[in-house]
């Protein structure tokens, strides 16, 4: 018989059944009758004027139906679309391209291969223009102004600052010790194994658009489509967005890409369903990037190693349009978490956004927006300062951590951390890895000239976007939702405003409901991703599903329990106050034999409900969280470096995470394994860079290096549990912690191995070539 496991159990995933049989339904698995295919002509130049587009040869190919250009879209007011950052972005250019692989024209055809033939046959005449790829040069006087559509005739987008500048400057003036370091966090790409795509189906009779789409936020997309295309007669009740099974998201499936808009336009134009699926190179070369932060950071400290102040100045390269998928009210997202796990007296951070001839973005790459940048910076800086002082980096952190009794802790940059115990997490990681013995081994190896390093990262995350006072998407508050319907036989359908991309919501949400109502997980179906059926929510990203929608699930279940109590009182002829709840049943206090199970109550809700109470057993909750949640952890990485080749070998990596109360330990561990691997990736392998002409390097999986099973270490996990005081289940969210925390641990380990040689910093990705060069520069030859 099925039982209700509830929270804290490694329930095997419900969604696996279809995936292990190859029966998932991803976007490209959907085929509709009469469906057309759309493919995109892209620019070979990073900056050029379009002199002419010649579609004739493409149109001569049997099966090619249309070639759509920016001028065509302009007639309908669709050549540009708004971004979430008060900027606008070209759907198709009317006269100028601003980055390599930018969409230039769309080909519509009866078959996929014919559409590709059409793309190859469209002839475009370009006149190349000067290219700006370096954001520093983009701000120099006389730099080519990339966005001629703006009134402002330079490449500066915005300036944002936070903190007390005067107090911070003063703290630096009087400081015993100061360190300063430039850190570049390169442009990277989430590269989910499924690329993006959609099928748009316009029904000219009903005037209804159905859009199957690889989106992490289907409801927000529906509203955006209604706002953008309202002037063409698309109203929100006539738009249905369906997010089918999603093959990984990591933030890359939050934005609206031109291909989606083109497919919708093509379907409206033809009255037929239109499919657009990007290939991998299009995905890497033109979809939203992440990171690309040029940071200069400074720390001030007392002689005894107490950090007093942090000052950070950053250039943010946003590419050609400011199209960041950033739902906060701050242009640099949550970068102001950059004081990290430490108790600073003062801090000041400023960020300037800059246009360059690169694809627009950014997105978060599996973190809350700009949190990895912040965390990497403070954890690198803490290590640099500890090394400057000649203090053990673990002791240094222990000394500077926010004390457990200081929570809720108000940071100098304005956040209120909900709960934490940083000392306990670091201590646990040190014990697990055998920190003292490793330091001893390192000292012995150093005597022999061998290079071994130990790196720590004690990060604090900020997730669960978010409280409506701090977050919105085009004004939409960032609540999320759950609707629970208990059927007469006690079985449940529950629908949520989020959308899993592999996180296992069908299982964990069922566990939350099972925990609250005592109905077995097997009796609970969870659905997401269809705007015609699910309640309105803002989607899954920034580790917000458990903190926000999970909370909504608990709150909706509690509403159902409240009604169930009334029905139970009626059935048991007792007063509500005399009833006691034990998971799955109400009984009369002192008379446990007088009991009604939740299933009996559900049946009565439809067959024998009390007078004065409506029939049925359903509830809905829209949960606007009072605060964000602040997961944290301490990671320790041990590396060995080959002096001959510069290769970095990760010998061990211990990750102690604290995500509050845990719903499903198996799934949490899986999330951490994946997050760590996406932290390893930019630390050692992944980078998208550009040559001075704006040609992309890293535009295919041939040279954009995702870690394989051979590079990925066997991660060692442990945990502490510090519940969130404001979340109804005490949970905090975990999907991204490891991506945030891991890069600094790896970089710190490498520099720890090389510090005694005089190496102070190596920018990620730390390739063998960079290490080899650093070693040779310090005279290490062997």
């Amino acid at each position, binding site marked *: 018989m099925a039982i209700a496991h509830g929270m804290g159990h490694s329930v095997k995933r419900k969604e696996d059944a279809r995936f292990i049989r190859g029966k998932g339904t*991803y976007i490209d698995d959907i085929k509709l009758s009469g469906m057309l295919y759309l493919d995109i002509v892209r620019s070979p130049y990073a900056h050029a004027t379009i002199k002419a587009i010649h579609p004739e040869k493409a149109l001569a190919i049997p099966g090619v139906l249309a070639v759509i250009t920016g001028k065509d879209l302009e007639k309908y007011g669709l050549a540009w679309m708004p971004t979430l950052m008060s900027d606008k972005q070209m759907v198709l250019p009317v006269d100028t391209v601003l980055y390599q692989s930018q969409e230039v024209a769309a080909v519509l055809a009866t078959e996929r291969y014919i559409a590709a033939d059409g793309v190859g046959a469209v002839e475009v005449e370009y006149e190349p223009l000067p290219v700006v790829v370096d954001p520093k040069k983009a701000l120099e006087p006389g730099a080519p102004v990339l966005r001629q559509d703006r009134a402002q005739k330079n490449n500066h987008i915005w300036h944002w600052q936070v903190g007390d500048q005067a107090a911070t400057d003063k703290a630096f003036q009087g400081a015993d010790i100061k360190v300063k370091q430039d850190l570049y966090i390169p442009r990277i790409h989430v590269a989910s194994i499924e690329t993006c795509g959609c099928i748009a189906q316009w029904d000219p009779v009903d005037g209804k658009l159905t859009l199957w789409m690889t989106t992490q936020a289907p409801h927000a997309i529906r509203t955006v489509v209604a706002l953008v295309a309202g002037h063409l007669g698309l109203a929100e009740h006539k738009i249905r967005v369906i997010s089918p099974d999603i093959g990984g998201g990591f933030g890359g499936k939050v934005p609206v890409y031109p291909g989606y808009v083109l497919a919708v336009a093509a379907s409206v134009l033809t009255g037929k369903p239109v499919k657009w699926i990007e290939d991998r190179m299009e995905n890497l070369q033109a979809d939203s990037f992440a990171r690309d932060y040029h940071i200069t950071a400074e720390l001030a400290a007392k002689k005894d190693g107490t950090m007093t102040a942090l000052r950070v100045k950053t250039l943010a390269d946003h590419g050609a349009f400011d199209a960041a998928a950033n739902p906060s009210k701050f242009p640099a997202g949550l970068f102001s978490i950059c004081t990290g796990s430490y108790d600073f007296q003062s801090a000041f951070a400023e960020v300037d956004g800059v246009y360059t001839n690169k694809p627009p973005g950014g997105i978060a790459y599996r973190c809350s927006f700009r949190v990895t940048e912040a965390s990497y910076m403070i954890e690198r800086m803490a290590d640099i300062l500890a090394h400057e002082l000649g203090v053990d980096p673990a002791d240094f952190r222990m000394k500077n951590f926010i004390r457990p009794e200081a929570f809720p802790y108000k940071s100098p940059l304005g956040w209120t951390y909900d709960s934490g115990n940083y000392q306990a997490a670091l201590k646990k990681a040190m014990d697990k890895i055998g920190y003292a013995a490793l330091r001893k081994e390192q000292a012995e190896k150093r005597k022999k000239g061998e290079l071994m390093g130990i790196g720590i990262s004690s990060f604090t995350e900020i997730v669960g976007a978010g409280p409506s006072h701090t977050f919105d998407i085009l004004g939409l508050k960032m609540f999320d939702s759950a609707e629970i319907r208990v059927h007469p036989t006690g079985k449940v359908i529950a629908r949520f405003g989020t959308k899993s991309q*592999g996180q296992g919501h069908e299982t964990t949400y069922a566990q939350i409901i099972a925990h609250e109502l005592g109905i077995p997980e097997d009796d609970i179906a969870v659905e997401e991703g269809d705007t015609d059926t699910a309640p309105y929510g803002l989607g899954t990203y920034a580790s917000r599903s458990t903190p926000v929608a999970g909370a909504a699930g608990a709150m909706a279940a509690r509403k159902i329990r409240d009604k169930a109590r009334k029905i139970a009182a009626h059935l048991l002829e007792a007063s509500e106050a005399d009833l006691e709840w034990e998971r799955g049943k109400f009984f009369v206090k002192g008379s446990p034999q007088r009991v009604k199970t939740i299933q009996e109550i559900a049946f009565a809700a439809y067959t024998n409900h009390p007078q004065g109470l409506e029939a049925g057993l359903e509830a809905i909750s829209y949960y606007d969280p009072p605060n964000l949640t602040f997961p944290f952890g301490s990671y320790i990485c041990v590396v060995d470096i080959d002096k001959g080749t510069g290769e970095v070998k990760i010998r061990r990596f211990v990750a102690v995470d604290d995500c509050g109360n845990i719903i499903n330990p198996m799934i949490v561990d*899986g999330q951490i394994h994946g997050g760590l691997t996406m932290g390893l990736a930019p630390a050692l392998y992944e980078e998208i860079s550009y040559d001075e002409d704006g040609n992309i390097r890293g535009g295919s999986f041939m040279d954009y290096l995702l870690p394989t099973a051979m590079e990925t270490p066997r991660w060692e996990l442990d945990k502490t549990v510090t519940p969130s005081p404001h979340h109804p289940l005490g949970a905090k969210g975990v999907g991204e912690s490891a991506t945030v925390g891991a890069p600094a641990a790896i970089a710190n380990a490498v520099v720890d191995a090389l510090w005694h040689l005089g190496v102070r910093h190596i920018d990620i990705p730390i390739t063998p070539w960079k290490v080899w060069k650093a070693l040779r520069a310090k005279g290490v030859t062997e």
Partner: protein
Amino acid sequence: MAHKIRVTINGTVHEADVEARLLLVHLLREVLNLTGTHIGCDTTNCGACTVLMDGRPVKSCTIFAVQADGRTLMTVEGLAKDGQLHPIQEGFHEKHGLQCGFCTPGMMITSCALLARNPNPSEEDIRWAISGNLCRCTGYVNIVEAVKYAAEKLRSQPAAAGGRS
């Protein structure tokens, strides 16, 4: 010009008239509606499209359908027999070897080929065998566990041999 091909897939013979340029993965997905085999890149790196051809794992995005003429293929849809999951499918479920599920069919097929030639692989063997298949979700830890689970199960039930195709 269309070419007539005859391919045995998961025990069923299929005949089709295909263009010379049609990729095997598109034959499977578009012509035969076997959509469990996925496409994740254009450069033979990701392995989402891996199928067994005459018992060997191949990336079906880099083989033309005409090259499969006369061959025997197995795809993810052929793993379960008579409603009974293959041990590798069980392993992925039991050990949480999948998250989004997109790389999973290719991973399982590659693992089956490994277990057919090496019934008792070490962790290193497993990691090497799946290194042509990219996963972005799991960090590979539980995929390795899933393959170990399947190896053990297959060793204890030789009848369910991993090399069947």
